[in-house]
């Protein structure tokens, strides 16, 4: 079943094309990594889906519904959104942060304890403020907040990019497990090719606003495109040098 369909998306930023005719179809339950150099249009593509960016032309539909026909607030309530800067509300407790979307939709559903457990945080964190938490703990709360309204689609913009390597690795694996357990569809922007190769089922490479490669991790490693090869060679050579030590 198709969870997300993107057709002929174009967006110009001050004369320069950020997206130059992008088309993409994502099946429900897929974990897709969007990779590419800085300025290749990854974030613009991601933000077009929850309409933080309005594309110039093209169409996006989620579960068969055009996103432009949905009220923007309702559209976003139904999509989990996790960003590199985390963006927890510093004046709210962990519990208030997690419950913010149910509060906006008025569902009044209290899943704080359940969600804390889901992201492997102790229950007594509920009453703490974000500043009392480490970066990794904060992003766990960020993930819990994104999941609070039971979204089926998750958009993640370099979610673990600001964390130290150990935390980054463990949080990445923990999220992948959650993705499988909850049957989510995930689109994750990342700079880190190794992270993409290890976490995702499918990798989409964007270069200068166009899709240059779209395949499973194993396929990417076998790519003959010189630009794609240059990207995947970095982690491969690092692994070889590490093994040689």
């Amino acid at each position, binding site marked *: 079943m198709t969870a997300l369909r993107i057709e002929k998306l174009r967006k110009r930023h001050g004369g320069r094309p950020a997206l130059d005719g992008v088309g993409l179809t994502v099946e429900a339950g897929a974990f897709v990594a969007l990779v590419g150099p800085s300025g290749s249009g990854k974030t613009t593509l991601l933000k077009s889906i929850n309409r933080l960016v309005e594309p110039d032309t093209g169409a996006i539909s989620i579960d068969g519904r055009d996103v432009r026909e949905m009220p923007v607030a309702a559209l976003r309530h139904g999509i989990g*959104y996790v960003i590199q*800067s985390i963006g927890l*509300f510093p004046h709210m407790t962990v519990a208030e942060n997690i419950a913010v979307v149910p509060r*906006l939709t008025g569902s009044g559903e209290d899943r704080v304890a359940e969600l804390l457990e889901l992201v492997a945080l102790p229950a007594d964190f509920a009453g703490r403020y974000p500043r009392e938490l480490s970066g990794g703990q904060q992003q766990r709360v*960020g993930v819990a907040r994104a999941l609070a309204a039971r979204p089926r689609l998750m958009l993640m913009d370099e979610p673990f990019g600001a964390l130290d390597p150990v935390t980054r690795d463990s949080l990445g694996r923990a999220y992948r497990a959650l993705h499988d357990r909850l049957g989510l569809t995930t689109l994750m922007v990342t700079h880190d090719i190794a992270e993409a190769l290890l976490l995702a089922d499918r990798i989409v490479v964007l270069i200068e606003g166009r899709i240059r490669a779209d395949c499973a991790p194993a396929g990417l490693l076998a790519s003959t495109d010189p630009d794609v090869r240059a990207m995947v060679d970095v982690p491969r050579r690092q692994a070889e040098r590490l093994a040689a030590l």
Partner: protein
Amino acid sequence: MSPAFAEAVAELPALVRAHLLLSGSAVGIGVLLGLPLAILSARHARVRTPVLGLAGLVQTVPALALLALFYPALLIVGRATGLAIPALGFLPALIALSLYALLPIVRNAVAALQGIDPGVLEAADGLGMTARQRLTLVELPLGAPVILAGIRTASVWTIGAATLATTVGQPSLGDLIFSGLQTENWVRVLTGCAAAAALALAVDGLLALVESGLRHRSRRRIRLGLAVLVAALGLALAPDPRGAGGETIVIGAKNFSEQYILASAIERRLRAAGYRTERRDNLGSTVAYQALAAGDIDVYVDYSGTLWTNILRRADTPPPEAMRAELATRLRERDGVLLLGPLGFENAYALAMRRPRAEALGVRTLDDLTRAAPRLHLAADLEFLTRPEWRSVRSRYRLRFAGQRSYSPTFMYRAVADGSADVITAFSSDGRVAALDLVTLADPRRALPSYDAVLLAAPGTDRRVVDALRPLIGAITVERMRRANLMVDRDADKRTPAEAARWLDPAP
């Protein structure tokens, strides 16, 4: 306790209430107006530039001038619209102070809203908050400490600037400061300053408590701070505890000792007749007359020559009786103002010199002065050099001084006493003329009109008010007025204007 201090303290409760009400309302309006402006400014650079520019511009106008500007502005608006807009008192003071409070409130609120972490705002948008939800759930709570810091600054400024409201006829703690300065009654000045400073510190402290409550998310501190502030404003708003009953008559006075004394004498007469009274001291010369014509004040004392030249714009100088008779007719026709009669003395402008200096130079008349003037310095009061009388004196006697400066009356007398000026624009009823051994120079060409003190009442003033004041007509000789003035103006054994009024008119 000295009588001056006791008198100042007795006036304090009413003045503190008026002061608090005025500055509280001004800051309130500043917040109601400033926050929406700041929200718009933070979102749109096209709004921000003119709003911050305009608020900054208002701030560069001296507070005193800003207050003074709203009196004629409101008069014009009142005339243009035909509405009964009070041009004197609370309204002009409120508008000027609200504008003054705007800058710190807007500037801080814009900084607060623009200083919020963009990641937090992106999360708010990404989670599906509407613009309004983002404002109320995220931006205002996060900006609150900085926004409140701006309100604190505005409150302290406004409480300080509200002392100037006295000059547009709005009672405030400035009443004590201005009248104290004029009569060199430092006890009054210090009482007024100390009370204003204490008020500012108290409000600042309470708002600091609320601010720290916001920073540390302590509802207790927020509630305590706000509760005390609201209670204080509530007290200021509550009806006067001295109780109602009796009609209130508003008495005006210009900004010198004689005016305070006469206003006190009028006040005593009216209170004896069962009226409640309010004072509007320190009014400018033309402001006082226009305020009377507009009914903002009910009664005050002016001088025939001043009315003749400033209001009727006449340059001729008829004999005193003829001038008074014509004034009574013309003012009634023109504005409905009632001239109740002369008090019995004249307070004329007269050029005066210290006797030894005048004798050494052989100056006895203004004709003599014409010769000596190029080597002499003139010290004038704040109004004289812009008045028609000065143009008339200057042209008829071809006077050219080596230098001329304006002083407030007290300092003008000081200037002639210490020799920094040779000639001053003295007042004939002033006690200091005799005390400093000044000679007033004769005016053979009749350049200066006569300045009989006359009692004026607003259009439609009640017959009984007029009757209550009638005993003052013709009752005050120039000698008695000089002595009363000297009691207030001298340095030793200084009396308050109220005490001098009791001596001047003991009857009621």
